[in-house]
């Protein structure tokens, strides 16, 4: 192992590619190799549950960077190589294929895998998960012949797939264990809105239930689901979206601390003091100062992947900056654009701006007088105003915020 072997980034994903690009931007001079298990050129994932299923785009059109970019920036890609073993003493990572990759410094952007449903029949044909481009292509293919689509899970993946399937004209049922939709991501008012919005568009939603078993036909294809409330529903296609589990196997081999993700400090550094990590695989200190937040949070969003990757790259390049951002994310379902800024979990009150009945509203969350987060449905200018206010540590008077005649941007207190 020597420093001049450069950086090996494991994971050719949003975080991994950003990390490599940022290393070059910050002047890192040594070799950079990004190794990824998938054969596709590194691509954006968010459209996989939306535009790809609608047929508006294909995974091939979602490349993060051009081939020329990688060549021009001295970033070597090794695609279709799954790293299974990392030997720290020799500084070599070994792929399933037998290929070996020498490294001076290691960056883990290994991501997460879909959480599996451990119930009888879950291995039947037509029970699908959605994580990568091949999953999306398989799901798109299966959707072409599906009459009734059953979605297990009421998070972003589940609801985006439900919306896509409904738009394609399928019968759609969503079943989830939790008592509200999007419970990890938005407040109760926004959850209730999405429940109503999906129902109005013909999606059946069953809360507080989970599959007990799937049953199939004699060809091994799923035909129905038995739910925990005793209900049986037919299904030609089941999509399971019940969360993701961080891929921590390599971190375990390296003896790194793991706690619902690879533990990193505010600079993206793992417990060995040298390996960095970024993206869905990471449990990091909260990037904002708020009361009642857990010691570490694991995010699954584009913004987190990008910003943590920049932080990790800055650390390696010797110009460290801590991970301090306003987390944000979005979801597109039917004609509904949801945008969320900040972390609302510690709020003690909220105000509603606009009318959920009109499908155009915002929920602003406060801790005392301090604005801490917002959920926005079809109110993009409000979202941007709040994101900017939070980034600048500014607030908006809760009383004034309810007046939709005044742009929120004008109400930010300096």
């Amino acid at each position, binding site marked *: 192992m020597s420093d001049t072997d450069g950086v090996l980034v494991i994971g050719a994903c949003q975080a991994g590619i950003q990390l490599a*690009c940022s290393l070059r931007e910050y002047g890192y001079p040594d070799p950079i190799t990004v190794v990824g298990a998938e054969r596709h050129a590194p691509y*954006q994932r*968010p*459209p996989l549950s*939306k*535009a790809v299923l609608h047929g508006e785009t294909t995974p091939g*059109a*979602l*490349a*993060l*960077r*051009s081939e*020329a*970019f990688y060549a*021009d*920036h001295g970033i070597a890609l090794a695609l279709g190589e799954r790293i299974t073993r990392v030997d720290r003493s020799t500084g070599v990572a070994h792929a399933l294929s037998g290929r070996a990759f020498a490294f001076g410094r290691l960056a883990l952007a290994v991501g997460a895998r879909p959480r599996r449903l451990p119930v009888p029949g879950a291995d039947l044909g037509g029970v699908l998960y959605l994580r990568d481009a091949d999953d999306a292509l398989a799901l798109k293919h299966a959707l072409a012949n599906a009459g009734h689509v059953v979605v297990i899970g009421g998070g972003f993946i589940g609801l985006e797939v439900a919306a896509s399937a409904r738009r394609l004209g399928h019968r759609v049922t969503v079943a989830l264990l939790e008592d509200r939709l999007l419970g990890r991501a938005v407040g109760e008012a926004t959850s209730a809105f999405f429940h109503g919005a999906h129902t109005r568009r013909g999606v059946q939603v069953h809360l507080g239930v989970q599959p007990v078993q799937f049953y199939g036909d004699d060809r091994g294809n799923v035909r129905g689901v038995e739910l925990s409330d005793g209900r049986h529903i037919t299904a030609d296609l089941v999509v399971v979206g019940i969360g993701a589990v961080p891929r921590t196997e390599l971190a375990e081999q390296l003896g790194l601390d793991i706690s619902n993700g690879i533990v990193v400090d505010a600079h993206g550094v793992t417990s060995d003091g040298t390996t960095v990590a970024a993206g869905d695989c990471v449990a990091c200190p909260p990037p904002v100062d708020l009361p009642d937040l857990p010691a570490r949070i694991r995010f699954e969003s*584009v*913004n987190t992947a*990008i910003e943590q990757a920049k932080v990790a790259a800055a650390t390696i390049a010797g110009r460290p900056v801590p991970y301090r951002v306003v987390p944000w994310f*979005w979801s*597109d379902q039917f004609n509904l*654009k949801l*945008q969320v800024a900040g972390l609302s979990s510690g709020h003690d009150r909220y105000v509603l701006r606009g009318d959920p009945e009109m499908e155009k509203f915002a929920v602003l969350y406060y801790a005392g007088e301090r604005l801490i987060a917002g959920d926005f449905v079809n*109110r*993009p*200018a409000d*979202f*941007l*105003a709040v994101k*900017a206010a939070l980034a600048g540590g500014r607030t908006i008077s809760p009383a004034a915020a309810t007046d939709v005649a005044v*742009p929120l*941007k004008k109400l930010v207190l300096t």
Partner: protein
Amino acid sequence: MPKVTYVSDEGEVRVVDSAVGDSVMQTAVRNGVPGIVGECGGVLSCATCHVFVDEALLDRLPPMTDLEDEMLDGTVVDRCPNSRLSCQLKMSDELGDLRVTTPEAQE
């Protein structure tokens, strides 16, 4: 193959060949043109691909949707009459070459 000319706020010029069907944002990001971020990938969620379009070309552009119009109200550098979000400008042979100036900041 249509070309996009990107001019930075400091006057630096980059000319990039664009694939037909790619947006001005995608063309910039994939080729490492600074000044355009495009964090959301082109779905009108982040407003970090704001550009000022060469005035002479404005009429040739596709019309703005309400969503793009609203997002432009929240860009980091205030909008001008020739502001567009470059993820909404898809390159085509009919549209031909474009020239855009990027703002001082996107986020």
